[in-house]
């Protein structure tokens, strides 16, 4: 287990002192985070470092995961898709299954949730727990990690009354927020620079991955790392790659794994494999949830990182790519817009054609790729490392505890 002090070389002493000073205002607080999976996906990755670091800072923090069967996660995937704008029809039987499983989870979690001073509920999967904890003492905050700006009507009609009961909510971007009768805060997520996914690698380790997947060291590599999810548009990436191949012999890596709470991944992966069939330069990789070092090496071996999503919460794979000094070509949606700045850290695109045009431009302007890489890394260092993320959570918690005004004087 890492200590926060290990980040000193990356962010500086003062930044860590700042966290300790803020946390000093939260002594004695009992905090619980609830989500739907221990591994797979950005939320689990964030909680995996956030919980121990909050504990290290002296805040009593617990992480609880709701349990459910395939039916339950099919319903929550419907919520997820619906919130991100896919037309879905929520059936009464699905609602019943969702509420039933939530009730089973509440039986197990009620004592700790009702006793907590602050409960952070991540995404819609565990959202119903609020209704099942009538004797709750603390402040309940709904943390939305996805782009809920244009939700499906049936899903929002069901979820909205549930979410209205929360005391506050957090979104990654204002554009994702909804009209809700409580304060809404903005906190962008972050990456852990010392995690297996982001730590510096030796050349030997990168070569091992290159050989394992038979990647040609002489030709450019384009990589999209993401779950096999329609919103990540892996088929659009293949289409863009085919347009590039008319001019440049690039290689494409599509790599991702499943998450426990995503039952659709297998079907999307099958479609991607079908689209890539017969082309030895498209590498479709289905990786286990813990293949962090492999993903790290693939990103570092790449010339350009692609994240051509059509909907995106924040896009931590973009942050990871920028941190590794790579230009990123990303879909002009969601949190990718916060990170990919045209001509500075990469390019935003809206179609396979746009992707192919920008890749060809960059491959012909290697100098610009290098400058973008340097800018991207510094941009992430200042804004999207876990220390900033932690600082904002602590600031929010100080505000929730003390009451919000434009200026709050905290204890030293």
């Amino acid at each position, binding site marked *: 287990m890492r200590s926060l002090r290990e980040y000193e070389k990356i962010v*500086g*002493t*003062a*930044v860590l*002192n*700042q966290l300790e*000073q*803020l946390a000093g*205002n939260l002594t004695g607080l009992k905090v619980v985070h609830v989500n739907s999976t221990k591994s797979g996906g950005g939320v689990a990755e964030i909680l995996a470092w956030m919980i121990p670091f909050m504990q290290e800072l002296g805040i009593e923090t617990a992480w609880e995961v709701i349990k459910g069967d395939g039916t339950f996660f099919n319903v929550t995937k419907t919520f997820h898709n619906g919130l991100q704008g896919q037309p879905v029809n929520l059936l009464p039987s699905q609602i019943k299954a969702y509420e039933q499983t939530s009730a089973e989870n509440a039986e197990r979690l009620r004592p700790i949730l009702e006793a907590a001073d602050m409960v952070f509920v991540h995404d819609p999967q565990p959202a119903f727990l609020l209704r099942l904890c009538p004797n709750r003492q603390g402040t309940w905050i709904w943390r939305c990690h996805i782009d809920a*700006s244009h939700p499906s009507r049936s899903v929002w009609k069901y979820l909205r009354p549930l979410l209205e009961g929360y005391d506050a909510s957090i*979104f990654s971007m*204002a*554009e994702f*927020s909804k009209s809700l009768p409580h*304060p*809404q*805060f*903005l*906190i*962008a997520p972050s990456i852990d620079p010392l995690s297996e996914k982001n730590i510096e690698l030796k050349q030997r380790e990168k070569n091992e991955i290159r050989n394992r997947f038979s990647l040609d060291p002489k030709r450019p590599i384009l990589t999209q790392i993401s779950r096999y999810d329609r919103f990540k548009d892996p088929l659009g990436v293949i289409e863009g790659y085919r347009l590039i191949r008319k001019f440049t012999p690039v290689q494409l890596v599509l790599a991702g794994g499943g998450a426990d709470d995503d039952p659709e991944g297998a079907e999307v992966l099958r479609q991607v494999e079908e689209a890539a069939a017969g082309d030895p330069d498209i590498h479709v990789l289905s990786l286990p949830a813990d293949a962090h070092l492999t993903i790290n090496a693939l990103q570092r071996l790449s010339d350009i990182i692609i994240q051509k999503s059509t909907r995106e919460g924040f896009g931590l794979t973009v942050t990871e790519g920028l941190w590794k000094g790579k230009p990123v070509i990303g879909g002009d*949606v969601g949190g990718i817009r*916060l*990170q990919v*700045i045209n001509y*500075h*850290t990469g390019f935003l695109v809206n179609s396979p054609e746009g992707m192919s045009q920008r890749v060809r431009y960059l491959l012909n302007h290697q100098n610009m790729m290098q400058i973008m890489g340097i800018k991207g890394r510094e*941009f992430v260092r*200042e*804004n*999207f490392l876990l220390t*900033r993320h932690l*600082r*904002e959570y*602590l*600031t*929010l918690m*100080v*505000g929730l505890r003390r009451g*919000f*005004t*434009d*200026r*709050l*004087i*905290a*204890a*030293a």
Partner: protein
Amino acid sequence: MTRNRENNRSRRSKVEVTPFQIMDCALIVRITDQLPALNLREFRERVADCPFDSIYHHFCETVIRPSFDDPEFHNDFARWARRALHDHVLAERLEIINPYEFADLEELRKVVLDILDDRLSEIHFIPWALHNRQFFFHSATTVIFDTSLTIDSPEHLCTAISQMTTGSLYYHFWEARRRTPEHTDDFTEWLRGWDGEGARMIKALSKIDFYYMSLRELQRTLVELSDKICGNGARP
């Protein structure tokens, strides 16, 4: 940040100067109750009655929140006019506003409204943003805390500034203008108590065009200046 009396080249004035207390701050950004604006007319209406905190945030706090330091636009209003409405003229007029020129935020609001009204009277159609490019009005809560660190004399400014967080820099250089009597930075206020290098440093600080700098650029500039003017060769 301890004081080296032997190397202290700045002379104190008659009044005993208390050490500079290094403060730090952190922001949490909040979405206001104001409806988002989808076109220029709506934007004008919202600016007219949005809270002062929101105007302050979109002009002065852009530098501290986690976002790309846009080299072109330094306030959110100008950026939105350019990137979402594609109105280059309006963007340039809004960008040139220096929010620190005004005595209070109501005056700043009036200037912004004047520019918006002028533009609305000049154009023959209302520019619209795409639905996913609406302008959301934000405000922020600043949590301020004492780092327990002090600067005893101008000689130690250079080292102290080089070790500050962006939160400290923001608090002492930007946010200070909101609370100091002469709307200046905290270093200037403190250096008034010092003769010699202190006075020269005040003059140099007044010439910094900080509004067009990121906090890291400002830090580099302050380190260079303080080393040049007050330094004792101890530059980090």
